[in-house]
């Protein structure tokens, strides 16, 4: 059953990620990103990280994709202006894909089979204990970075004087 669910969720993630790459319309690409996120959250649940799956859906599906859609519709760019891929792009894609396949094959051939050891129970309490003891400094740094990002966004989205206005 778990194997079947793994197959379903990984296919959902990968196929919709491919559609994000290939879709001409940016709004559709954002929607497929959402589907891909749901698949990834399913994979997280299979890995016993239900809390992370929840946070992923909250932050990404709730905030990031909504922000993407908002900006896409705000800018209102014309869809379908993607030019067909050139010869070099296709050759590069084939070469890169072949290299990736060979590399993954070599790594996979030599890898010892990892077995799941007795897991640390991923409860909210265990996460909190790690976050507020071992990783206290990174938590503080990340908090400051969020503050700086907020200030940066405010500064960036202020109406700047256009060059013609500045000249006059």
């Amino acid at each position, binding site marked *: 059953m778990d194997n079947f669910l793994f197959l379903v969720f990984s296919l959902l993630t990968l196929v919709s990620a491919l559609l994000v790459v290939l879709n001409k319309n940016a709004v559709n690409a954002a929607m497929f990103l959402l589907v891909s996120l749901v698949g990834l959250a399913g994979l997280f649940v299979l890995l016993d990280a239900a809390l992370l799956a929840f946070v992923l859906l909250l932050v990404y599906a709730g905030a990031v994709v909504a922000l993407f859609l908002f900006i896409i519709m705000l800018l209102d760019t014309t869809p379908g202006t993607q030019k067909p891929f050139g010869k070099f792009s296709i050759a590069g894609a084939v070469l890169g894909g072949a290299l990736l396949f060979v590399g993954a094959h070599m790594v996979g051939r030599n890898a010892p089979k990892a077995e799941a050891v007795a*897991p640390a129970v991923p409860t909210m309490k265990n996460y909190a204990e790690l976050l507020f003891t071992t990783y206290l400094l990174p938590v503080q740094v990340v908090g400051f970075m969020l503050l700086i990002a907020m200030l940066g966004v405010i500064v960036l989205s202020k109406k700047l004087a256009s060059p013609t206005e500045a000249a006059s």
Partner: protein
Amino acid sequence: MNPAGLDTYLAVSALLFALGFLGVLLRRNTLVIYMCLELMLLASTLALVAFSKFQGTLDGAVFVFFILTIAAAEVAVGLAIIVALFRRRHTVSVEELNHLKH
């Protein structure tokens, strides 16, 4: 018990990363390039969670929290930059954003 092993999760993660990278290389719309960057970040979080589970510690999973925070901040700043760019140049296509070149 989870029958899917670490290597299968890592394979999914590598494929997701490759798809994101392909998108960054091939697409010309800045917003779609941004989405593909997000896909690459998500692939790395999947690898971290899988490692964390198969190692039996929570450190990798805690790291995912930090990655999510950084990604959220990055999206906010990046989209603000794209909007500012669109105000000046009236395009988001990377092919037309070549004013440093000429």
